[in-house]
């Protein structure tokens, strides 16, 4: 394993030290392992809080700042944060208007945030939880843990964050978050497995000409393997899955993210972007806004996820609203 780390055990705390040193606009509580806006708590503003396992940077710590999250709670690599940590963050950012927990639908995240919400309630903090479950690679049925949360998280944090910034109350912000989640679908393909610092070797073995289709952001193997194909075909596969699950109509507006999983060059993401745009164009679907880059990563995994959100005018307007975070920044 080749990584720029000091020890596998100290990756998270060392990285937090780096965030603290280079982002004076953020407060980093290294003991509690939380990242909060320097001006938190903001009285009267609904606080946006998210978190999950580390290894997906810039998600979530890179999205803390005006217009997006008030706090992020990073767990160990690929491991949900613990309830104490989440509670500490909720306390740090609650400005009396309540806290929205943006939680990706993984068993661990769900349980830890649920326990934190109970603890928060004990302390008089109102917390609401929105579960993100946009990954169409996973079957959603009562027989599974449900769909995983992935790229839509960025859309939810940005759009609901903007609404919170405009002074909406907790229910309104939560409702918008749910709406964005419901309108979003993602699909990921990996060319390689990622290596966690603690495991020290790739999470799965992939032959030189095979890919993981429908891979998860924790480096979980996908639902099937297949041969490597040209970008056009791989995008076709992903877009088929996305559009089969949520058909789009001519004239629909979308926000689209072509997301690198950490080890994929940006030039390849733009090759993918061209194919995604071509598919949407043939359907008459418009791209109202887009992101191309590494936003929800899986450490060093070579791979790409595509997220498509059917966006109404309000969502597009909130998307365009000012945001000032390390990972997403415009309009301020």
């Amino acid at each position, binding site marked *: 394993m080749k990584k720029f780390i000091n020890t596998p055990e100290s990756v998270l705390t060392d990285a937090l030290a780096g965030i603290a040193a280079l982002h004076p606009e953020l407060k980093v509580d290294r003991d509690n392992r939380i990242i909060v806006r320097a001006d938190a708590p903001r009285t009267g503003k609904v606080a946006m809080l998210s978190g999950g396992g580390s290894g997906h940077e810039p998600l979530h710590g890179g999205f803390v700042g005006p217009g997006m999250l008030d706090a992020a709670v990073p767990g160990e690599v690929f491991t949900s944060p613990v309830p104490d940590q989440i509670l500490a963050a909720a306390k740090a950012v609650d400005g009396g208007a309540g806290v929205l927990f943006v939680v990706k639908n993984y068993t661990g995240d769900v349980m*830890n945030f649920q326990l934190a919400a109970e603890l928060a309630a004990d302390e008089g903090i109102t917390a609401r939880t929105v579960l993100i479950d946009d990954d169409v690679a996973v079957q959603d049925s009562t027989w599974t843990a449900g769909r995983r949360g992935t790229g839509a998280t960025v859309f939810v944090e940005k759009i609901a964050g903007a609404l919170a910034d405009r002074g909406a109350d907790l229910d309104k912000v939560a409702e918008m978050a749910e709406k964005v989640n419901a309108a979003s679908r993602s699909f990921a393909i990996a060319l390689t497995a990622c290596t*966690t610092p603690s*495991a020290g070797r790739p999470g799965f073995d992939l032959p030189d000409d095979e890919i993981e289709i429908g891979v998860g952001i924790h480096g979980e*193997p996908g639902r099937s393997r297949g041969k490597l194909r040209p970008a056009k075909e791989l995008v076709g596969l992903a877009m088929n899955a996305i559009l089969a699950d949520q058909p789009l109509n001519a004239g629909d507006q979308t926000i689209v993210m072509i997301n690198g999983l950490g080890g994929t060059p940006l030039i390849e993401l733009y090759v993918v972007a061209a194919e995604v745009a071509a598919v949407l164009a043939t359907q008459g679907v418009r791209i109202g806004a887009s992101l191309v880059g590494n936003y929800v990563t899986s450490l060093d995994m070579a791979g790409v996820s595509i997220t498509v959100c059917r966006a109404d005018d309000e969502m597009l307007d909130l998307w365009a609203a000012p945001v000032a975070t390390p990972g997403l920044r415009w309009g301020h």
Partner: protein
Amino acid sequence: MDIALASTWIRAVATAVEEHRDQLTQLDAAIGDADHGANMSRGFTAVSAALETFEPATVGDVLVKTGSTLMSTVGGASGPLYGAAFRAAGKVLTEPSASPRQLVEALHAATAAVTQLGAATLGDKTMLDALAPAVTALEEALFHGADLAAATAAAAKAAEDGAHATTPLQARKGRASYLGPRSIGHQDPGATSTALIFTTLAAVVAAR
């Protein structure tokens, strides 16, 4: 079981987890995200440290402390589940020593806590598939007159069998469930660590 035995047990689990860390990680790599070994190790390292300075008044204190520490340090799916399990078990044992019957009750409480929090049922390919049969085996052995050593040995065997029996199952809870049919053919990491906890219990009871 008295306070000393409970403490010995938990510390022995910490040692066993360290020894099986890589195995747990490898099992999790196959159908999850390769962190179960690190998670358990981080948790039980913290538990060992916490017990060092802790002065328990009851058997339950040891287990509640264990559960709380796991809950605050592990994260993931296994953290809250093991945390809740140990805490629930500990809350039942309010004396400096616990009878075998009380131990069974505590383990029932643990099972209930896991089921309530995780909503898994038997056969979902989770830690429950080791935990539930272990508790049943312990209870049955005691009912048939076995002493604690024989009963915990039976529980350990049942937990191990239960863990092994997860291999052909398709996961329906937790991260492994995303794999669908591809989860078949691999032993569940959480069931494996649960089996480890029971074999360690049997070992410390036998060694007493």
